[in-house]
C-alpha cells in the first residue's frame, strides 16, 4: 500500500502515479482538501482510498479501479466512468455519474441535481435522495434511489431503468412508471447487494422508464 499526501504532492504528480500504476496495487490519498479531478483517468484495477472530501470530477473516466471516498464529492463524480467502481461515504453534488458508460457508483448520502444525466450504462445506487432532473436523457444503465427523487425525474429519457423507494416529486417528459417484473426485482436485488444495502427489499421499489413517445418526430408534437 502506498500513501500519497495531496498537501505536499501536486495533483498532477499523484494522478500520474495512479495512472501509471500496475494493477492490483493499493493506494491511500491523504488531505484531498476538496481538490478537483482527484484520481481521474485511472486505467488499471487499483484500490484507491481517498481520506477526505474532494471537488469536481473525482474518478472521472475511471476504468477498472475501485475508488472509495471517505468524505463528500463535488460535481461530476465518476463522470464518463467506463468500468470499476466509486464508493462515496458522504454526499455528492450535481451530475454524479454523468455520461458514464459502465461501472458502479454508490453514494451513501444524498446526490443533488442531475444525478445520472445522460447515463449510458452505469449503475448508480444512491442511499439518500436525488435532486431535480436526475436521469435526464438517460440512455442505458440503472439508477437506484433509496430515498426521494426531486422534480422532473427522467426527463426526456431514452432507455435505462430508474428504481425509487421513496417519493417522486414529479416525472419529466416521457418518463412513466413501469411494471416491476421478476427480472427487474432480481436485478435490483443484485444492485442493492453490491451497495451492501441489507435492510431494503427490491419489492418495495417502483420502476420508472421511457414511454418512448419522443423517439420519432411527430408533427402533432408542435405546440
Amino acid at each position: 500500500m502506498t500513501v500519497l499526501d495531496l498537501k505536499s504532492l501536486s495533483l498532477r504528480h499523484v494522478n500520474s502515479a495512479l495512472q501509471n500504476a500496475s494493477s492490483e496495487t493499493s493506494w491511500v490519498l491523504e488531505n484531498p482538501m476538496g481538490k478537483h479531478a482527484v484520481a481521474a483517468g485511472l486505467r488499471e484495477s487499483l484500490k484507491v482510498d481517498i481520506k477526505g472530501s474532494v471537488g469536481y470530477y473525482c474518478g472521472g473516466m475511471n476504468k477498472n479501479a475501485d475508488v472509495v471516498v471517505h468524505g463528500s464529492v463535488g460535481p461530476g463524480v465518476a463522470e464518463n466512468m467506463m468500468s470499476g467502481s466509486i464508493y462515496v461515504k458522504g454526499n455528492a453534488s450535481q451530475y454524479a455519474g454523468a455520461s458514464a458508460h459502465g461501472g458502479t457508483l454508490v453514494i451513501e448520502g444524498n446526490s443533488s441535481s442531475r444525478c445520472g444525466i445522460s447515463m449510458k450504462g452505469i449503475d448508480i445506487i444512491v442511499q439518500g435522495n436525488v435532486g431535480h432532473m436526475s436521469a435526464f436523457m438517460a440512455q442505458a444503465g440503472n439508477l437506484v434511489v433509496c430515498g426521494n427523487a426531486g422534480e422532473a425525474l427522467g426527463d426526456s429519457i431514452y432507455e435505462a431503468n430508474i428504481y425509487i423507494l421513496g417519493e417522486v416529486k414529479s416525472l419529466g417528459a416521457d418518463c412513466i412508471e413501469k411494471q416491476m417484473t421478476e427480472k427487474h426485482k432480481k436485478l435490483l436485488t443484485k444492485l442493492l447487494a453490491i451497495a451492501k444495502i441489507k435492510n431494503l427489499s427490491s419489492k418495495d421499489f417502483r420502476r420508472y422508464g421511457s414511454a418512448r413517445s419522443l423517439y420519432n418526430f411527430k408533427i402533432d408534437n408542435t405546440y
Partner: protein
Amino acid sequence: MCGIVGLFAKTRSVEDSLGKLLSDMLVIMSDRGPDSAGVAVYKKSNGNKIKVTLQSEEPSDGFPKLNSYLSKQKNLKTQLKINSTHAVLELSEKNSNLIINDLKKHFPKIRLMSTGSNIEIYKEVGAPESVVERFNIRKMRGSHGIGHTRMATESAVTTLGAHPFSTGKDQCLVHNGSLSNHNTLRRELQKKNISFETENDTEVAASYLTNKMSTGADLGQALDLALKDLDGFYTFVVGTEKGFGVLRDPIACKPAVLAETDQYVAFGSEYRALASLPYIEKAKVWEPEPATVYFWEHNK
C-alpha cells in the same frame, strides 16, 4: 464562473480572526474569478456612527482634498481612515447624509462603496491575493463577512463592476451567474427614481432587493420575491447588518456549499474554500437546495 465565500461568526474567536479566515477562503477561489475581488466586512461602528466607505482612483489627490473640505468647509473633526484606494469615514447619521450629497456635487471622482452602521466594502481589479494584501483584509475583525472573486461576463472589468454591490444601508450582494432580464428590471427600477452606477446585472439584483426591503419586506421575503422576478442563473449571498442569506435559482447550476459548526456558518462556491476552516471535519456540510432561502442573523 465566479467564486463566492461567506463567513458568519458565532464566537468571539471567529470574530477576531474573521478577516484571516475569509481571506484564505477568498484566495482559494482565485481560479473561479481571477480578474477582480472584493469583500464586505461587518463590524459595529463605535458609538452609533455611520460608516461611509469611499473609493478613489486617485487616492493621493482625492482623499487629502476631501479631508481638508471636511475640516475647513464643514468644521468636522472626523477624518478619513485611508486604506489604499478606499477610505472609511465615521459620521453621525445626519452628517453622513450631508456628506454623501456633497460628494456627488464636489467630488464626482470619489465613489461611494457602502454606507451603514456595520458594513465596510473593499473591492478592486486584480488577483484576489493582491486585493487581500492591498487592503490588509487578513487583519480585520468582524461579526460576518462576504467575499467574491470575479470572472466578468456581463460588464467590464472595473472597480465598480467588482462585487460586492451595496445599494442600501448595510446591505450588499455578491453573485455567481448571469441574469437575463436585468435590462428590463433596471428600467422598471429607474422609473422609481433609483439610479445605477454600472451596466452590471448584479447591481440590478442588489437594487431590486434594496427596493423590496425599503418597502416593508424583510430579507427572507425579498429573496422569495426575487425568485419570482429575477430570470437567469444565480447563486446569491446577501449581507445585512445582522447576518447573511443564501439563495440559488431553481435550476441551480451554479455551485454552493454550506458548512455549520458551533463556531460559524460558512459559505463557499466549492468545498475547497471551506477545507481550511477550523474543525471543518466536524461541521455539518451540505448543498443548499434550489429556490430555497437560507439566512442566519445575530441576535445582539
